[in-house]
């Protein structure tokens, strides 16, 4: 698998399939692990980092943790390629921007990614489209076992898996679900949802951008506690709250329609209109408008469009994706022109259905 082969697809989390995929984009679980016989990253010398990288690279390959794993030396990748992997959610921003020996193993289906030398020596991640936490847990649990047959992880009887940051100790597990919540944002109920989630120790953050106003109305909900609970109970804690939020979002959508079907249809159609005709457009505006369009498609207001097409546009209009698709590095102004061109091409061809039509 070459990086360039990934460029034209849109990745597991935007496949737009799986249970509740009109609102739940993806289900993701990650496990933090460290080798028992090396210092954590903050105290690791360059030579330690190189040895850790070699040890875990070997272990991941030997364990054949997942079929068709491709190992990438992140330190040697070009900046644009690293950015591309971040947009694809296969590595973290920190992993892309740090220095020294580090890598990532990715499976062909983009469900599994294993980051070496991130904040911890090993970060295993499994991502499934839609609401699918139980399966994701089964898969990641198995991968963790396979790798543990080849290395010794830092583990303490009382405290469980030991991690660089005490916020991850115990299970080392973060369970997160990525939700598209445009109606809760429009009806100004999103803050209320945040506050109630924080009360039950769940964290919420926007997918892109900082602050509470997430770009494209994407929000990630995850567990904050990692110690003193079993993995299954953490999966359940996050899994149980998601249907409640889905229900809130659906009710907010119904309320918007009831209040004024015309206004909502107008908002969605105008967003669609701008995306189809703009000559230059920023990534931020694109995300904002695509979010309205996506909700419109889900509510049957834009019968010409399909969700996978919209999902693909979300990812392909990101800066690094756009540049990879163009095969050249572009400045902001040129990117905005190319982005508008790309959107026009994909939203105006034929009836706007996905590419095979």
């Amino acid at each position, binding site marked *: 698998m070459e990086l360039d082969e990934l460029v034209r697809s849109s990745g597991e989390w935007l496949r737009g399939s799986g249970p509740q995929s009109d609102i739940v984009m993806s289900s993701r679980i990650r496990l933090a692990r460290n080798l028992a016989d090396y210092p*954590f*990253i903050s*105290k690791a010398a360059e030579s330690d980092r190189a040895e850790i990288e070699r040890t875990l690279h070997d272990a991941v390959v030997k364990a054949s943790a997942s079929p068709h794993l491709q190992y990438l030396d992140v330190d040697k990748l070009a900046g644009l390629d690293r950015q591309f992997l971040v947009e694809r959610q296969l590595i973290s921003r920190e992993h892309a921007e740090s220095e020294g020996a580090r890598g990532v193993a990715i499976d062909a289906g983009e469900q599994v990614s294993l980051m070496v030398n991130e904040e911890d020596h090993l970060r295993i991640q499994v991502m499934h489209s839609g609401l699918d936490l139980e399966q994701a847990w089964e898969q990641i649990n198995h991968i963790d076992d396979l790798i543990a047959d080849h290395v010794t992880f830092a583990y303490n009887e009382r405290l469980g898996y030991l991690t660089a940051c005490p916020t991850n100790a*115990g299970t080392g597990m973060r369970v997160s679900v990525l939700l598209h919540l445009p109606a809760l944002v429009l009806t100004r109920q999103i803050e209320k949802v945040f506050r109630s989630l924080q009360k039950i120790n769940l964290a919420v953050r926007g997918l892109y951008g900082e602050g509470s106003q997430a770009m494209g109305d994407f929000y990630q909900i995850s567990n904050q*506690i*990692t*110690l003193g609970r*079993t993995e299954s109970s953490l999966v359940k804690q996050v899994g149980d709250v998601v249907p409640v939020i889905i229900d809130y979002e659906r009710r907010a959508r119904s309320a918007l329609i009831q209040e004024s079907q015309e206004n909502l249809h107008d908002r969605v159609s105008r967003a669609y209109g701008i995306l189809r005709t703009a000559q230059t457009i920023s990534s931020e505006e694109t995300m904002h408008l695509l979010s309205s369009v996506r909700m419109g498609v889900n509510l049957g207001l834009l019968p010409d469009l399909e969700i996978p097409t919209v999902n693909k546009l979300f990812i392909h209009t990101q800066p690094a994706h756009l540049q990879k698709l163009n095969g050249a590095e572009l400045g902001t102004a040129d990117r905005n022109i190319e982005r508008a061109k790309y959107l026009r091409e994909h939203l105006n061809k034929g009836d706007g259905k996905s590419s095979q039509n």
Partner: protein
Amino acid sequence: MKCQKCEKTATFHITELTGGKPQELHLCEECAREYLTQPDSSDGTPASLAGALAQQLAVGQTAADLARLDQQACPVCGITFFEFRNKGRLGCPHDYVCFEKELDPLLLNIHGETRHVGKHPRRSAADTDSQTQLIRLRREMKEAIAAEDYERASELRDEIRQVKEGTG
């Protein structure tokens, strides 16, 4: 009183009222300015950890206690508690043992628990002591090389080899 973030004298005394109980912070002018102008947790320290750390420090610690605590160092990786407090990241697995008294209240604050009940590795670490020893020996070897004490470095290399074979 010394600044909680550096070695200078604390001249700013801030009471933070956001989230849970009020927290007292004692900072020098420079760190106070940084603290007050920074958006939350922009230093990469998770908000929950930063909060727990600040709260822990606020609980009845005199400056002398704090200074003593800050100078404690892990015999394996060499990290001081001051360094951990600043970076929010530990230096090696042994820190959880040697800073147990300081970390337990912190873990309790973050997780509400201090006992793991989840999965464990199928093949549990045969001998964690020797794993920890390896971290220390490697560090000592690097220090010996840096000090151009090659005789000591080669002794340490042999020792590392022995420990590794022992744990096979």
